């Protein structure tokens, strides 16, 4: 083939490797799918459209009068999210300072502990925290609030320590150069720089927490989820429909508020 330029995007070996990678992915997927399929009563699944239609027809129209009983749980849900977020910040801020490379007292000793706290808090879903706290301190919104707080510590601390690591260091140097003590260097040199990030993270997590706290009631940790659970237990679908609608609206409103606040900060 003299005189002809052959152009290929990748070399042949590389191309083969990529094809092999895709093949492996497909094989894994098929194997996983077989597993799920074996554990599924396909008889029910074929019937699913009819069941879905059935549920839908029973759930409509929603039982509007039930809203009377939802105001209080909704108030509880709001409190669980708000107080939980506030509590989490009390712990998240120090943890973030211990985890950030440029503020931690010890990179080899303290930082790994702080990072481990963060990843543990983040790994455990707030429902699991709630499950645990209900077992320990009994059902109620206190358990829910603490569950939300525990889950949020990791989230807020992670975003915050990333913000701390990105600050401008000469501003901090300038404050140290005046002979300020370490606490003053933090309050004058670092805090003003991370305030916008902190405020943004707080409303962002608050918005997520509203969504999370709507379901905590399913495990007995208070809020509107409690009503959802009891309505489901007695198969009161019109009530379920109303509750889902209320949750939907609450989440949309909180997302809107959080977006507004974040826009105002930036």
């Amino acid at each position: 083939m003299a005189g002809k330029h052959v152009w290929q995007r990748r070399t042949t070996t590389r191309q083969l490797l990529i094809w092999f990678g895709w093949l492996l992915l497909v094989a894994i997927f098929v194997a996983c799918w077989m597993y799920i399929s074996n554990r599924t009563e396909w008889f029910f699944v074929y019937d699913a459209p009819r069941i879905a239609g059935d549920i839908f027809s029973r759930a409509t129209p929603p039982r509007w009068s039930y809203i009377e009983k939802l105001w209080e749980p909704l108030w509880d849900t709001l409190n669980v999210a708000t107080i939980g977020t506030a509590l989490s910040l009390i712990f998240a801020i120090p943890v973030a300072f211990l985890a950030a490379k440029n503020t931690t007292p010890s990179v080899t000793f303290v930082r790994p502990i702080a990072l481990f706290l963060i990843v543990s808090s983040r790994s455990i879903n707030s429902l699991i925290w709630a499950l645990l706290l209900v077992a320990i301190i009994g059902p109620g919104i206190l358990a829910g609030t603490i569950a939300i707080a525990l889950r949020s510590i990791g989230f807020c601390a992670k975003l915050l320590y990333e913000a701390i690591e990105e600050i401008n260091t000469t501003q901090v140097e300038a404050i140290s150069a005046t002979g300020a003590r370490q606490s003053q260097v933090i309050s004058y040199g670092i805090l003003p720089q991370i305030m916008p990030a902190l405020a943004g993270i707080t409303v962002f997590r608050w918005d997520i927490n509203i969504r999370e706290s709507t379901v905590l009631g399913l495990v007995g940790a208070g809020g509107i989820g409690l009503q959802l659970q009891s309505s489901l237990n007695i198969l009161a679908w019109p009530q379920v429909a109303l509750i889902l609608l209320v949750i939907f609206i609450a989440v949309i409103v909180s997302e809107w508020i959080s977006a507004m606040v974040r826009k105002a900060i930036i």
Partner: protein
Amino acid sequence: MSDAQVVRHWRKPPTIERAWLRYGLLLLTLVYLYFSVGSYDVNWARVAEGLDRGWAFIKAFANPDFVSRRSDFIEGMTESIIMTVTSTVVGIIISIPIALGAASNLAPLPVYLFCRAIIALSRALHEIIVAILMVAIFGFGPLAGFITLSFATIGFLSKLLAEDIESMDKAQAEAVKATGASWLQWINYAVQPQVMPRLIGLSMYRLDINFRESAVLGLVGAGGIGATLNTAFDRYEFDTAAAIIISIIVIVMVLEYSSSLIRGWVQ
């Protein structure tokens, strides 16, 4: 150096300039705190009683029990992992066309609104709520969990991907269009290279989230380790619960580490 010293006062200017707004917000916060904290009706005797159990739970972490519920444990974990993998793959595949449809610079208005509606619905409904409905419709088992997580993945990925497409470099996109490429060729040559690194990064992140979520779906019968965990808590078998929680943390750490590796490798 000082000639007739004039005393001049200085106070830090308030963050919110308008006084009525400043005090109004403060008052509102205090009133809210008063009523919200007041609404907590805590049974302190019950809490005190629980502290022992809390301590027992913390001690259980020193001595986790992986053995006594071994078969439940293995089955639950396998199911969680399998649901995570399948739902992430299916979620990605479906979310790509929806992301294209939800990008205002690509899609016509009706398509845009339809895709945005799907995204809003998926994001507003908590996974557990979706799982309850899916269990009601498809029956107990991992299929319900798989569908739930796929649906949640779609909302998450499509939204972030669509935002990424909307903020892509226009000049590159126009240059490819100017060559007379067809729509699909245009997506392939102008859009895909720009958003691919982010798509991979987001997918890895979602894999991580899906695993964490899969651990709770079992609470409502949608498969995974959650059911075993729930039973363990119900029976106060804290050592088994600790074993499960430790496994979840370890797997999440491994996923986070490998996702940071892959993201570094892609960029």
